[in-house]
């Protein structure tokens, strides 16, 4: 697998180191009589040091040993022999070797650090450039392009898999795939595993060239956004392994970029939503105004005919009264529709205040005085009920709708009861009547929009009333149920009690 060229290159520094030692020997040999042996040792040490700085650790270690050997052979008496006449030279050899090894180690360390710092700087610069390019990216496509271009420079093909924005638990067919290399099923499996576990998946390069072997999850603190799959263009797997710190940095840059794109999209979406909401609100309010104005004229003008002096004939008065009442009914329907539209749009803001529930009982029965006049009202609201936090206008609407239903679906003279009591952590209000009750097979659907209690209703209505009640009660955190009881129907709803604000009692006077 190894070719000749790299091993020859790898051996070259050793040859250079040997040559250096040889040169040193040849250069100092003529000075043998002139210089102290101690100075010659110094020259050899210098050689080792130079080798360490230029050639690295291995060659300099070799130079240290070779230097000791040459010094012994050529300079220590007896010359041209490894024999040592004076035992003291053994100390010289040992020190020379130790100093040579230590200095070679230090010098090599220094040059290694320098090289490392240089490569790190290079890497940082490259990553910085990538970050800058990614910073300008506006779509996942651009991100993939930039990444492909960047990693192409290190002989890697990439495929970027981005999970759908919906987030967690994404099945792999929901990935968007970017890149030139189409992943096969096996690769997809690895990608999915990297995505699900949030860890790097590396495969054995058994499959050969042109197959993704490293799968880096794109992780941001809260979730995994996708996977970066890497396909080496050559089969030099070790090089890919060596690049791994760089690749991890690239993956985290990609994750941050995708996250940024995601939030940019989300911000744009919510801006759209806000303006849609504003549009809807303004349509609703102008609709409400534009419909109410002609209805007001209709009601008023018809009523003028009813009260006209001198009076019209009876038939004309009756007709005018019908027109007036129908216009009222139409207004009622329109208000319900608009209210439901507002409630459904979710744009309703509750204007909650702590107040006794009793307040809206009185105002509701007064609003419906005409309709309720022919029924027997039985109101049981204990005096000592706690205050409840609710929107009086909306809850009045609930109560009015329920009372109206109770009156509409009961014969004249029937009893209508309103019952309030605390039950656990809630206030429970029941509105019931004497009548036929809800049709048993439809009782679960009475709160659905446009649901009517009866298949062919004899009583006018739209099926909005109870749906509105449900929306309002639920907006308050309460529940509402419809049920039949002996002799009639009953709708019960709850409002959470909470803790009313404190109140200082005044001293009696």
């Amino acid at each position, binding site marked *: 697998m190894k070719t000749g060229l790299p091993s020859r290159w790898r051996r070259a520094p050793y040859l250079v180191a040997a040559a250096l030692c040889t040169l040193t020997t040849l250069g100092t040999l003529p000075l043998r009589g002139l210089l102290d042996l101690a100075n010659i040792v110094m020259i050899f040490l210098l050689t080792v040091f130079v080798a360490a700085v230029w050639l690295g650790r291995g060659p300099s270690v070799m130079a240290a040993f070779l230097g000791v050997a040459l010094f012994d052979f050529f300079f220590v008496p007896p010359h041209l022999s490894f024999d040592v006449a004076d035992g003291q030279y053994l100390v010289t050899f040992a020190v020379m070797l130790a100093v040579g090894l230590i200095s070679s180690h230090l010098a090599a360390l220094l040059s290694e650090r320098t090289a490392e710092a240089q490569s790190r700087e290079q890497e940082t610069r490259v990553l910085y450039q990538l970050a800058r390019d990614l910073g300008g990216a506006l779509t996942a496509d651009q991100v993939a392009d930039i990444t492909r271009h960047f990693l192409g420079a290190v002989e890697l093909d990439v495929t970027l898999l981005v999970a759908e924005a919906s987030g967690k638990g994404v099945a792999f067919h929901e990935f968007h795939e970017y890149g030139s290399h189409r992943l096969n099923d096996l690769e997809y499996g690895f990608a999915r595993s990297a995505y699900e576990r949030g860890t790097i998946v590396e495969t054995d390069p058994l499959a050969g060239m042109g197959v993704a072997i490293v799968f880096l999850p794109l992780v941001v603190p809260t979730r995994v956004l996708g996977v970066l799959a890497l396909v080496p263009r050559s089969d030099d797997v070790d090089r890919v392994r060596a690049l791994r710190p760089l690749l991890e940095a690239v993956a985290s840059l990609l994750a941050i970029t995708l996250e940024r794109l995601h939030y940019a999209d989300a911000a744009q979406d919510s801006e759209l939503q806000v303006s849609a909401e504003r549009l809807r609100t303004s349509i609703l309010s102008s609709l409400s105004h534009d419909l109410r104005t002609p209805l007001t004229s209709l009601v*008023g003008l018809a009523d003028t005919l009813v009260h006209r002096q001198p009076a019209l004939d009876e038939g004309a008065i009756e007709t005018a009264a019908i027109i007036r009442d129908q216009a009222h009914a139409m207004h009622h329907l329109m208000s319900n529709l608009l209210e439901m539209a507002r409630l459904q749009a979710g744009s309703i803001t509750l204007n909650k205040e*702590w107040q006794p529930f009793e307040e809206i009982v009185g*105002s509701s029965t007064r609003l419906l005085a005409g309709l309720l006049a022919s029924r027997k*009202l039985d109101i049981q609201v204990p005096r000592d009920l706690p205050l409840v936090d609710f929107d*009086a206008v909306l809850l009045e609407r609930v109560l009015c709708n329920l009372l109206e239903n109770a009156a509409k679906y009961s014969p004249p003279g029937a009893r209508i009861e309103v019952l309030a009591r605390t039950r656990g952590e809630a206030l429970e209000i029941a509105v019931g009547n004497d009548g036929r009750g809800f049709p048993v097979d439809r009782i679960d659907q009475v709160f659905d929009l446009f649901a009517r209690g009866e298949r062919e209703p004899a009583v006018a209505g739209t099926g909005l009333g109870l749906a509105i009640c449900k929306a309002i009660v639920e907006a308050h955190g309460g529940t509402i149920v419809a049920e039949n009881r002996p002799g009639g129907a009953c709708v019960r709803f709850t409002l959470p009690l909470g803790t009313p604000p404190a109140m200082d009692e005044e001293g009696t006077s």
Partner: protein
Amino acid sequence: MNETTARVIVVEDEPQIRRFVCDALRREGCASIEAATARQGLDELARGKADLVILDLGLPDMNGIEFIRDMRSWSAVPILILSARSAERDKIAALDTGADDYLCKPFGVGELLARLRALLRRHWQAGEASPLHRFGDVEVDLSRRIVSRGGVEIHLTQIEYRLLAVMLANSGKVLTHRYLIREVWGPGHSEQGHYLRIYVGRLRQKLEMDPTQPQHLLTETGVGYRFQS
């Protein structure tokens, strides 16, 4: 109205509504002056004696609240607001700025005339308030601070009495929560809306036949209260 002919200015941009309102006013014996814009309404008001202003809040040329503020700086003529049912906030703002009562669209002629009569009566009786008030079986003598029901004296706390007195003094008029709190508890108590509601409840229990269906201390939901004798 018998005493004099009341002059009523109707400020409403919708001609059909203006038409039936003015028609009803004429039948009631009032002189009606029509104004299609706020500017016109203020001009009419400045030109001559008026006893009542009926004002649509949604005018094309001026915000209704501005109209009221403008007018209130130099005129005490009662103002009856015409507004949409769901617009509590507008109503409260109008009442707090100086309007006297409101009517929700669509409204019948009967309702309109009832409000009109109540406001004119208050307007003409201003300055000759009597210390004696009677409603249901309750008698209130403000000069002697005595409240009795069916001939039996009823004890009211200081705050209850003050609240009742404010409401009696503004009989027939809608009083916003804010106004009542300021009048009874003084400024700086606006956070204590629940006090007002509790005290109204107590007054009802002491003075109403059926506190759950009050006939005199009426709730104007989302807006405030009204005393009706």
